[in-house]
């Protein structure tokens, strides 16, 4: 066995040498592509929709773009694009560390489905924009639906029409995907929401609202997940340019609940918005909705599934064995991307 192993080792060294030669000739990206792997680029895109926001969130956004393996060699080909919106309390880069965007696109290509994956970053002063339109955080709806799409179509060989564009997201990103699909018809043709949050109207008590409003902003910016999410939602949904340093209302005025603030929260809740957007959702080619059976969002997401059914809006629905994020990469690879393979145009 020993000589064999030695010989194998010899072959291995030769192979390694050949690979080194190939790498010297090709760029690393081309080498990966030649090996059937996707190529990841991290770029910055300027979004006019975000300019002038009161929080000072940068209008220059990180965007991770993953190109399918054949992109560099099949230079006449145009590709469908899957836009993926990350969840709250993470940047797009952090989510990439968790789910490995490049591996997902590589796996899809191995099954014969080549996409461009575009994963924009929407991290803000309070750790997530809610993909909403607020003068305090910026118009993140416009960032995704206009600025980002135009930039991607201008830079890459895309199928630059709704049939070639899918929109997906996890948690806060699933919420954003559903809401953008409702409010901006005619951009994306299919939508996939993984464990979407925030479907029911946010509520509060006068005590909670007062506690948030009174908190020093330095503390708020270091607050744990749930509390910081309350700030993120207030700045996204009830902006108030007259109320620094948060530039937001928290739902209490004169010791009582403020109906305008609570109303604004309801007006951002997809379950409350749905009846006036049935036409937009029926205009989609396909909708996918899924949630883990141990996710605290199971009830809300089930309510959305039922509401879609009530309005006769066709959609895929899955409840799987899992929690809010423990199987995210697998769900994206085995369900989300195959969903888009079925529904997006291929040429």
């Amino acid at each position, binding site marked *: 066995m020993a000589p064999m192993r030695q010989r194998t080792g010899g072959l291995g060294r030769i192979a390694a040498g050949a690979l080194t030669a190939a790498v010297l000739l090709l760029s690393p990206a081309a080498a990966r592509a030649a090996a059937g792997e996707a190529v990841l680029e991290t770029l910055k895109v300027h979004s006019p929709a975000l300019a002038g926001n009161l929080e000072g969130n940068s209008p220059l956004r990180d965007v991770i773009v993953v190109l399918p393996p054949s992109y560099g060699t099949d230079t006449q080909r145009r590709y469908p694009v899957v836009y993926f919106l990350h969840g709250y309390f993470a940047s797009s880069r952090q989510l990439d560390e968790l789910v490995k965007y490049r591996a997902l696109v590589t796996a899809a290509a191995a099954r014969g489905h080549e996409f461009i994956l575009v994963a924009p970053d929407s991290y803000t002063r309070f750790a997530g924009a809610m993909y909403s339109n607020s003068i305090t955080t910026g*118009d993140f709806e416009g960032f995704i639906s206009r600025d980002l799409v135009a930039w991607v179509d201008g830079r890459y060989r895309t199928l630059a029409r709704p049939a070639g564009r899918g929109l997906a997201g996890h948690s806060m990103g699933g919420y954003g995907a559903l809401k953008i699909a409702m409010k901006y018809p005619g951009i994306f043709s299919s939508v996939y929401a993984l464990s979407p949050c925030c479907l029911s109207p946010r509520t509060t008590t006068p005590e909670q609202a007062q506690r948030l409003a009174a908190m020093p902003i330095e503390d708020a910016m270091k607050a744990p997940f749930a509390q910081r999410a309350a700030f993120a939602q207030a700045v996204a949904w009830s902006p108030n*340019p007259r109320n620094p340093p948060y530039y937001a209302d928290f739902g209490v005025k004169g010791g009582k609940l403020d109906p305008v603030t609570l*109303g604004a929260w309801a007006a951002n809740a997809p379950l409350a918005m749905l009846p006036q957007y049935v036409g937009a959702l029926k205009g989609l080619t396909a909708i996918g909705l899924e949630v883990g059976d141990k996710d605290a969002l199971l009830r809300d997401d089930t309510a959305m599934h039922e509401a879609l059914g009530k309005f006769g809006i066709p959609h895929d629905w899955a409840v799987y064995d899992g929690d809010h994020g423990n199987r995210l990469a697998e769900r994206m690879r085995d369900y989300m991307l195959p969903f888009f393979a079925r529904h997006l145009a291929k040429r």
Partner: protein
Amino acid sequence: MGILNRLGRFAAGAALAGLTLGAPAFAQPSGPGGPAALAQQPANVDKIKIHAPSLVGNLEGDSTEIDVIVALPPNYRTDTGKRYPVVYFLHGYFFNVDQIDGLAHFGDAVADEAKKGHEFILVAPDGGRTKWAGSMWSSSPTIGDWEGFVTKDLVSYIDSHYRTIAEPRARGLGGHSMGGYGTWRIAMKHPGIFSAIYGMSACCMSARTINAEMDGKIEKMSDEEKLKAGFGERAALASAAAWSSNPQNPPLYFDWLTKDGVVQPDVLAQWVANAPLAMLSQYVHNMRTYSALGIEIGTQDGLIDDNAKLDAQMTRFGLKHSYQPFEGGHADKFAERVRVGLIPFMVKNLATK
């Protein structure tokens, strides 16, 4: 503010208007009221019917052929090389467009303004011949997509059949009461179509709250009683058809605010999501794209608080706008306000070439 209070004040304002106008506006429990339509239209008015693809398939079975009054400047038919700005006008609840034209005399108003050198086309679609006597100019499977009707079907029909300046800078949108409400919601949700926006005595601005007594009373009505109910009750039912649609709930196809007397928070939230004061914070960027925003409201109108709130919110959000309270009620000076409020605002703000 309770619903009874709010609708009561709205109804009282409108009823006052009916009395002041000397017409049995709200004295006909079986159908929409208001003065009779003009027997004969002046020569500069086209009364047309257009097909509305956006309303096709509405569950109420309301007509998808919509009456539209088009008031042209008197020289329109002779001065055939000229293109004109267009003012779109949305009427109020419990009226149809003929009745509102019977008050406003759009043809005369447009002709008189043309004499001053201000030529424009005024387009007034009908939004009152629905099952519940008013579309709320909203969008739902039950009533159809009235926002799409106004912003797509109507605008494209007018631009392709009349010599308009077919650009946002030459399109204005205004409306009265329910039409003022429609004006604000359409302006927020559909930027890039109109440039000048004018809300007259707009209703329905605040997030709805529950009034257990009145909402419970409506719940107990038979469908027949509902169809014959008074102004306030029927306005609430029109709101339900517009805002809390439910295709699985025949024959009316909407969810009501209470069920067995118990408040339905999900339904209430859907109504709230249709209230301009609740909607505005997510549409500030859209509202900034307009060249002019105008609010007017009578000082004796029960709706003045809500309109003052809109004024305050726009100020808070840094939206440049005009706020014009005038001496009067909800509709007693309607015809005059079309001439001294709506039209001068549009003349000032719309492009003419």
